[in-house]
């Protein structure tokens, strides 16, 4: 190929890129939806999650415990009150209220408590709760732990009265040391941030990619385009670059949204000193590059197979389903991640995003392996779209 024909090819590719970007930026509806979901939804998620964690911590700290039969065990009630628990008289329909979620946990003291204790038998108390309610869990755990504490205290006092050291009854001392760095706690928040970053790279280019392929065909502007000297390969390259550029913009805005929210938003202090600084934004961006380039190529292919935008949207939902499911599967995969995961697109990126969030840098080798499959898929998808555009059947309704 001579220089002048190469220059002409590059000029045509750039003309297509330029037109597609202009067309996309003019599309206010798609633009608003994409940008809103990118910039706002992530931070809103974060705010909700942080508030949930904060309110749970608060519930455990300021435990309100309705008690049935408080009069039968005044010493226990006194102990609870010394531990800052607000003891109230339980309502008659407490079990219904627990089922509805109005009450977290209720303590029932047996009528025979005092009599049993006097005879040397264990006094019985009962905790009523619904453990399936996530919101109630901190209160339940706090109530259980307080009762265990009271039990141990009482037992130790009895042993002391008999001249026995309390260690006799507690031969095992359990110490724990949690190796999670502060960043590693709050796994749910970690998951959401990584998931959302990944998702931005899928959603960012979707509307544009389908509009520029299936939409172009539906609006009957594809045939005139194919009649110009622009080769199918140039058309595909220009469109791919345009969709990728827009996708990259959406991903960067999403990451910026996270960064600004975590840095400046009045998030409640939840004891998760969560790290998402400029360094993490940068690592995220590096890890997501293969996604930012691969998904537009695949979406262009899906779009080019459809006659109309709506049809393409239906086809793309399968792709979305797979991409959004992979991280969820990984979240529930409790075993250590196998090495080959680095070669699986989406999986590798999700895993590397988590690495970045834990404050570690993804290694060059990991990044390189995470690139292989996407690079191959990009090539295959772009060649397939080019071949479709070269086929005569693209002109007919089929």
């Amino acid at each position, binding site marked *: 190929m001579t220089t002048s024909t190469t220059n002409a090819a590059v*000029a045509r590719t750039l003309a297509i890129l330029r037109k597609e970007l*202009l067309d996309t930026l003019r599309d206010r509806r798609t633009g608003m939806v994409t940008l809103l979901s990118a910039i706002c939804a992530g931070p809103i998620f974060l705010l909700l999650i942080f508030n949930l964690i904060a309110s749970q911590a608060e519930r455990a700290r300021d435990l309100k415990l309705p008690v049935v039969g408080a009069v039968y065990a005044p010493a226990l009630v006194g102990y609870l009150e010394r531990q800052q628990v607000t003891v109230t008289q339980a309502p008659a329909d407490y079990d219904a209220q627990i089922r509805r979620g109005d009450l977290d946990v209720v303590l029932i003291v047996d009528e025979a408590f005092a009599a049993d204790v006097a005879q040397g038998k264990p006094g019985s108390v009962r905790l009523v709760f619904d453990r399936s309610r996530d919101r109630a869990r901190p209160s339940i755990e706090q109530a259980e732990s307080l009762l265990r504490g009271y039990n141990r205290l009482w037992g130790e006092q009895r042993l002391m009265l008999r001249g026995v050291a309390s260690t006799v009854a507690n031969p095992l001392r359990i110490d724990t040391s949690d190796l999670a760095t502060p960043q590693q706690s709050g796994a749910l928040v970690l998951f959401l941030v990584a998931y959302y970053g990944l998702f931005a790279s899928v959603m960012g280019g979707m509307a544009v990619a389908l509009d520029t392929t299936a939409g172009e065909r539906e609006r009957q502007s594809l*045939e005139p385009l194919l*009649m*110009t*000297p622009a080769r199918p390969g140039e058309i595909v390259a220009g469109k791919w670059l345009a969709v990728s550029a827009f996708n990259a913009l959406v991903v960067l805005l999403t990451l910026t949204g996270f960064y600004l929210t975590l840095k400046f938003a009045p998030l409640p202090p939840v004891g998760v000193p969560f790290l998402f600084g400029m360094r993490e934004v940068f690592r995220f961006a590096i890890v997501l590059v293969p996604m930012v380039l691969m998904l537009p190529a695949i979406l262009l292919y899906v779009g080019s197979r459809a006659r109309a935008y709506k049809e393409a949207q239906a086809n793309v939902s399968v792709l979305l389903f797979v991409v959004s499911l992979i991280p969820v599967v990984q979240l529930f995969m409790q075993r250590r991640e196998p090495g080959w995961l680095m070669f699986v697109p989406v999986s590798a990126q999700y895993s590397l995003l988590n690495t970045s969030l834990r404050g570690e840098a993804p290694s060059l080798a990991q990044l390189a392996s995470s690139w292989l499959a996407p690079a191959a898929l990009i090539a295959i998808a772009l060649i397939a779209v080019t071949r479709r555009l070269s086929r005569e059947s693209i*002109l007919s309704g089929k």
Partner: protein
Amino acid sequence: MIEVDALQKSFGKAREIEAVRAVTFDAPDGAITGLLGPNGAGKTTLLRMIATLVLPDAGRARVGGLDVVADRYAVRSRIGVLSDARGLYQRLTARENVRYFGRLHGLAGAALDARIDALFATLGLTPLAERRTAGFSQGEKMKVAIARALVHDPDTILLDEPTNGLDIMSVRTLRDELRALRGQGKCLLFSSHVMQEVAALCDRIVVLAHGRVVAAGTAEQLIERAGTAGLEDAFVQLIGSDEGLAA
């Protein structure tokens, strides 16, 4: 100058649908040649082969001396095509739509803008130039599509059923524009199934039926050959039935 020589094209899995069978005709410069035939006669396939979008199974076609298969991209630079597919980019202005195609044809900068200005002035599009095409009427859209097809000043212009869906005023504008192009010495090939339209506009008529050329010549020659009183009867006689001829 368009030279079509025994052009052939079939579709279907076993190539069982013969759309164009050994079609031969010429369309000279400085004239409007009409391709008249009922629906399904093979007009669109024939035009698409000349426009290099569809590869012929056999035979050859040349545009300005260039082969439509071997020199397909050179041919594309020489032809302007106005087809049934007249979709515009609705979020772009009229000027941006035409400019995009100008760039794809290798034009750029001030020369391109001057060319667009001249085209828009001829077509009466100047007041609409900077408006987005979303709200354009059918006639206005057609004018933008014409400007788009002519932006690179092609010698040869192919029009496939260009009046489909247009109102009378738009059809008149189109006719005037085509006559003006003929005056500039361009070669125009115009397909239609509407007899009156072809009769009103074309210097030469090629009658196509079932993928074959059944007659060619001026309107007078066709009447003479068919031995009928008027043009309409001549067409029916030549095609063998009046099926698919209605407007």
